[in-house]
């Protein structure tokens, strides 16, 4: 579903993303982990076709994001960091805009808006403008927009960042419901979410992939048996030392 091959991006002399390569199959939920500034968002923006890679390619459902961007983007639902939305619209207006910009027919649009409104549980705020919504609802509207065309691949950048525990649970439940039908990549720096949501965890640091494990396998990497958090600390500290 999603094939990432040698994805590389430099900003000036700094290599923000360095030859990242992995594949995600249908039914997999991959946690994309790393400290702030590790290159998570840059990678996701390249996968979404928002930023051009310097080297490498991404295949979304077989379509190259470099040579066939629009077909690739048609296969992808993307939630950018911070879930940017048009604040002056109501959620249904916003969802209709995204669906129509994606080329959905009017006849299909109404059903799709109803479906994602139900999936994301945002029915109760349908008549409010997005400006008046809480962070949790806004994030769910962003998720609903990413799902409007029922894409086979989902890229979610920090979908639970800044949410309270109840909101986090709601977003996690939504992702769990979708998981069997899609290939999903979720970036996060909240490690507690990894076992709760993901079937696989990839750790990046300073632009490079330093681990690709199951959550349990990742926790087992900790030298002192301290679990996921210790493993994460060990891995990312090491590479800081190696770079220094």
């Amino acid at each position, binding site marked *: 579903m999603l094939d990432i091959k040698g994805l590389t991006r430099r900003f000036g002399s700094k290599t923000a993303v360095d030859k990242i390569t992995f594949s995600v199959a249908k039914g997999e939920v991959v946690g994309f982990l790393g400290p702030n500034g590790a290159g998570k968002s840059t990678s996701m923006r390249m996968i979404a076709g*928002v930023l*051009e890679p310097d080297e490498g390619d991404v295949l979304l459902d077989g379509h190259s994001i470099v040579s066939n961007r629009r077909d690739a983007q*048609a296969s992808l639902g993307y939630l*950018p960091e911070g879930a*940017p*939305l048009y604040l002056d619209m109501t959620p249904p207006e916003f969802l209709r805009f995204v669906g129509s910009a994606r*080329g959905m027919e009017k006849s299909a649009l109404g059903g799709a808006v109803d479906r994602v409104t139900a999936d994301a549980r945002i029915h109760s705020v349908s008549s409010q403008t997005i400006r008046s919504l809480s962070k949790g609802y806004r994030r769910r509207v962003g998720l609903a927009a990413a799902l409007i065309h029922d894409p086979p691949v989902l890229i979610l950048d920090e979908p639970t960042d800044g949410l309270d525990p109840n909101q986090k649970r709601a977003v996690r439940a939504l992702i769990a419901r979708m998981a069997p039908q899609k290939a999903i990549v979720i970036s996060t720096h909240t490690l507690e979410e990894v076992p709760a949501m993901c079937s696989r965890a990839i750790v990046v640091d300073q632009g490079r992939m330093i681990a690709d494990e199951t959550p349990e396998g990742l926790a087992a990497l900790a030298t002192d048996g301290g679990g996921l958090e210790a493993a994460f600390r060990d891995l990312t500290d090491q590479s800081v030392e190696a770079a220094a």
Partner: protein
Amino acid sequence: MSSLAEALRGFRATYAREIGAYFGAPIAYVFIIVFLLAIGLFTWEMAGFFETGSADLAPFFAWHPWLYMVFLPALAMRLWADERAGGTDELLLSLPVRMPGLVLGKFFAAWTVAAVALAFTLPMWITVNALGSPDNAAIALTYFMSLLMAGAYISIGAAISSLTSSQVTAFVLSVVVAFLFTVAGWPLVLSGVADVAGTGMAEAVARFSFLTHFEGAQRGVLELRAVVFFVGVIALFACLNGLWATRKRLG
């Protein structure tokens, strides 16, 4: 046909979204009301609409370039700067659409607001008909060219709006560029250019003046070169707009 539809995918959604943003908030109404007040003030107080003694709209149309120069950048400044400030440009770039649909959707939405404002000045046309017998074909032509010129100012403003995330910066820069395009035909400017760069350069500069190209229309003359000029300016800045709005892809 299908390739055109493909190129313009996203046009309808963008146009509808922008029209909603203009008319769903006070922006469009404030713009239209203040524009009408200003054009009324200039036409009556500054140009002496009733004192000229002739039933035509010359004192009204004479102010159009000058008012557009300030007002239309205010209308266009939010088109792209707002997307960047709110991060929604990220969303737009992730959609499987080509740039022309987005650029033209936004451009035509702003142009529509300008056209509505211009339509509200039609009572003046009716008034001169009540007062005398003006050349209505000439007035219709001037209206048409004025609308076309408004499109050129909006295209400039929209393109510059894609260079910054600050609406204020977009507005100020657009007014400066619009001012240069407007006054390029002024004798004051031309003699300055002629002193520095020679008369050949001054003539070249004059060819880019909005004032010069609007002059024929004000006399009721349809000049093909003026139509081509304004359409060309719209097209040129629409292309720049597309380039500038996608440069984020390059990082």
